[in-house]
């Protein structure tokens, strides 16, 4: 019974924020903070108490329903066999905890930044997070699509109404609209694929259902499976973002308010990776196996292309945005590697990137509040002008380039280690991404914080709120880097399942497919 509350809490909290705006600007912030705190606490509690050896896997036997650590189901639209079906396994509990944590941080980092329409801002923020939690819990394909599309609207408002105008004259509304159209159009393609799958299943069994467990049993011809898989892949590729579909991301990031960037990089990108792991691979294992080399090379391309473009940016937020493209490329390689080690690495990488990207965007936001620019050509010499912030930026830049001792290192190492066996060339080329990573991470520090100072005046230092947010993230990132075992234990069963699906398909002789 706790699962629906995970979704309802942010939605209700958002409405409260909106309604309590009439009593001043402070109350909505506290309500939002409490809401997110509650979500985070519930996520941690579920993590602590759940039995995550239960996860969906093909080994459960033909016809057996997938096992979950927790499950909730009530009928919703009976005409189509759609139910509000939520389920939790190790992967989703990790993602939900990350959502809760970043939710708390995005409320905290907008404490001073957002000064007008505070209630409505937090309504949008809460609803994005509610939608994201819904995506992580839904195991009914209609419900999944419902949340997938639903979270776009508040995100659109967040960028369009509270965003900054770009340094190159692009308006925030253009960026928001671009984001919306990219994801909405690709989402519709996924809807077509979902319905295609449902009707294939309907023609076989005569049962109209959107239930994940039932659809897993669908048998398809190779051609159909490949096309339906592509429909899912395109939707996830846009959100991921895989390189030909990435152009919305830098614009959206550059124009979004800090909280928007934190959510976008920290969690929204992860919904795509989650979707691949939960839906695209298990539902279409044979087609995915066939597609795996293409996906992996797309990942390699994203790593290098993202890193190179990141290096070329002058806008500090765009730099971090492109670095996300690069980092998510590693996750893409791992997902299609059919190696349990690499898949576990992908989970760690998703968490670590969530933490480090969020921290970098928060730092960019704090810098922007002081300098009122994101252009690195106008920065320089900040190291001398304020304490803490440059040093912390250096730490997170180092984490982003994969410094041992941080979670990013563990993630990237596991990914490369696991993928090497099945795809050595992919892994070798992808490893060069680490070199490029250090180039753009260090050039950011160099351009922004070292060099001659543009002004002599000291900048206001970090407040306790600002400092504790970033320090907390740093501690978590080091913890994840030094002792990742609890995370690995939690996601082990889920990743084993995914590995079996893809592994079984890969091991079949080609003719049998």
């Amino acid at each position, binding site marked *: 019974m706790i699962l629906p509350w995970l979704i309802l809490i942010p939605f209700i909290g958002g409405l409260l924020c909106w309604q309590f705006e009439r009593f001043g600007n402070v109350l909505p912030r506290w309500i939002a903070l409490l809401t997110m705190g509650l979500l985070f606490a519930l996520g941690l509690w579920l993590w602590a108490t759940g039995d995550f050896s239960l996860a969906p896997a093909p080994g459960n036997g033909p016809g057996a329903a997938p096992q979950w650590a927790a499950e909730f189901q009530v009928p919703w*639209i009976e*005409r189509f066999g759609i139910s509000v079906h939520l389920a939790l396994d190790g992967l989703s509990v990790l993602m939900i905890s990350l959502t809760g944590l970043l939710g708390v941080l995005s409320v905290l980092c907008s404490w001073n930044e957002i000064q007008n329409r505070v209630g409505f801002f937090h309504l949008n923020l809460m609803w994005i997070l509610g939608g994201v939690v819904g995506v992580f819990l839904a195991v009914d394909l209609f419900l999944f699509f*419902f949340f997938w599309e639903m979270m776009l609207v508040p995100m*659109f408002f967040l960028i*369009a109404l509270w965003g900054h105008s770009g340094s190159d004259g692009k308006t925030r509304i253009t960026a928001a609209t671009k984001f919306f159209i990219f994801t909405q159009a690709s989402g519709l393609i996924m809807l077509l694929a979902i*319905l295609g799958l449902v009707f294939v299943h309907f023609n076989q069994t005569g049962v109209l259902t959107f239930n994940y467990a039932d659809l897993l049993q669908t048998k398809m011809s190779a051609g159909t499976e490949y096309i339906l898989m592509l429909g899912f892949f395109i939707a996830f590729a846009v959100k991921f973002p895989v390189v030909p579909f990435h152009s919305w991301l830098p614009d959206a990031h550059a124009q979004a308010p800090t909280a928007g960037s934190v959510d976008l990089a920290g969690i929204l990108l992860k919904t795509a990776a989650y979707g691949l792991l939960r839906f695209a691979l298990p539902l279409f294992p044979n087609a995915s196996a066939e597609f795996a080399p293409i996906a992996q090379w797309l990942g390699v391309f994203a790593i290098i292309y993202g890193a190179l473009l990141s290096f070329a940016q002058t806008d500090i937020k765009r730099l971090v945005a492109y670095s996300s493209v690069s980092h998510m490329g590693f996750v893409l390689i791992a997902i299609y590697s059919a190696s349990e080690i690499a898949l576990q690495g992908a989970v760690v990488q998703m968490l670590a990137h969530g933490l480090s990207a969020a921290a970098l965007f928060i730092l960019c936001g704090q810098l922007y509040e002081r300098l009122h620019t994101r252009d690195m050509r106008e920065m320089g010499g900040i190291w001398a002008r304020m304490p803490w912030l440059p040093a912390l930026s250096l730490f997170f830049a180092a984490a982003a380039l994969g410094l041992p001792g941080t979670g990013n290192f563990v993630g990237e190492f596991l990914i490369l280690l696991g993928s090497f066996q099945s795809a050595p060339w992919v892994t070798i080329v992808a490893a060069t991404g680490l070199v490029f990573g250090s180039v753009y991470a260090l050039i950011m520090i160099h351009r922004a914080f070292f060099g001659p100072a543009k002004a002599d005046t000291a900048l206001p230092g970090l407040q306790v709120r600002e400092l504790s947010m970033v320090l907390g993230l740093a501690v978590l990132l080091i913890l994840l880097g030094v002792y990742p075992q609890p995370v690995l234990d939690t996601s082990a069963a889920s990743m084993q399942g995914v590995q079996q699906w893809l592994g079984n398909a890969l091991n079949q002789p080609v003719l049998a497919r």
Partner: protein
Amino acid sequence: MESHAMQLTTQHFIALLPLLITSATVVLVMLAIAWKRHHTLTFGLSVLGLNLALLSLLPALEVTPIQVTPLLLVDKFACYYMALVLAATLACVTLTHAYLGGESGKGYPGNREELYLLMLLSAAGGLVLVSAQHLAGLFIGLELLSVPTYGMIAYAFFNKRSLEAGIKYMVLSAAGSAFLLFGMALLYAESGSLTFAGIGAQLAADGLPSMLAQLGVGMMLIGLAFKLSLVPFHLWTPDVYEGAPAPVAAFLATASKVAVFAVLLRLYQMSPAMAGGWLNDLLTLIAIASIIFGNLLALLQNNLKRLLGYSSIAHFGYLLVALIASKGLAVEAVGVYLATYVLTSLGAFGVITLMSTPYSGRDADALFEYRGLFWRRPYLTAVLTVMMLSLAGIPLTAGFIGKFYVVAAGVQSQQWWLLGALVIGSAIGVFYYLRVMVTLFMAEANMHRHDAPFNWAQRAGGIMLLVVAVLAFALGVYPQPLLELVQQAGLVAVLP
């Protein structure tokens, strides 16, 4: 059939009750106007009549399906669309009352009462149309629906645009009717029957439909496409939507189009000849063109009424996807989509109406007049936002359920080209719906020419609008009741 076709029993009268009550209301309203001009009295009589007609659907449902004269077939399908037409008319009448203004002071300067008369008359035509199973019934219904709308569109005749729109609609609508009649004549010449089922059976017996029959069906399609404003017969739509008084535009977009589409669906389902060969390809082409051009042209609009006009072209393109799919979920999909579309259009035009209330020369339909509306009228803005999201088909709104149904029907019958057009069209559509939405929330401009009166929520129109918005949201979250209703409203097998 011939023996008892002319005998009318009580059951037949019960089945006809909605139409009879509406017609009686027309007469009553006319007499009341002749006796004494009184705006609120006329409004009250109209609302009462429409509500009674809606209620009379309940006993009518008990006797369905029943054939009343060879012209009309009252089945559950007809009852469902009658309910839709009556509810839409009721909403438009409510909006009209707000729009024309109170008893004294500001408001419409001419005679107010006749607009109700025309609207009721037109609604009666809609009721005939949705139960027509005979070409004569179709024609009578269509003319009874269209002719009063000429007067309604030109009702604000001292406004040049309104008059121009009325004349334009009259000429084009008459041209459409001419096409329709010619097509009917050709079909009759070929098949020797005027009932939908008879034509279908006759043409099926002949094997491949002859050239003459195909030409006849094609010309009928052109006539109906005029009324539904499908590309390339759409040219009148934006001008008429812009020129017509806002509540009349709402009526045109909802009740009028629903009735025409319902009869098209019945014709298509009952006469398989409609669905053959190149005609299907032609319809596919019309659908794709409507989706693409409707959406593309809407991109360029700065006038909300014109924008909604173009968007309605695109929406009827989406509906054609379900019509062409024609089997499986298709009939249900049309039912659900039309219901959600009616709800959404009423909401959108309702906001425009309340913004233009009371009547003051021209409607508040320029997009800049809505700039920053959120900071002045949060509830009105919330209504319009929900409607825009619903038109764009975003989850949590009724529009999403409608679009989902249409896509499902398309996937089921594997209409990939149409679905491709639908995806592209929706992506383009999102752009202009979002533009309207962002405008509502932007920083307030220093412009206050048009504003809804402060007590708008107290007026009947405002309450109706809030109900529409809540319904659009509720159906988006829990559509099961609507789906069950529509499922039962499927077309019954053809009566012997």
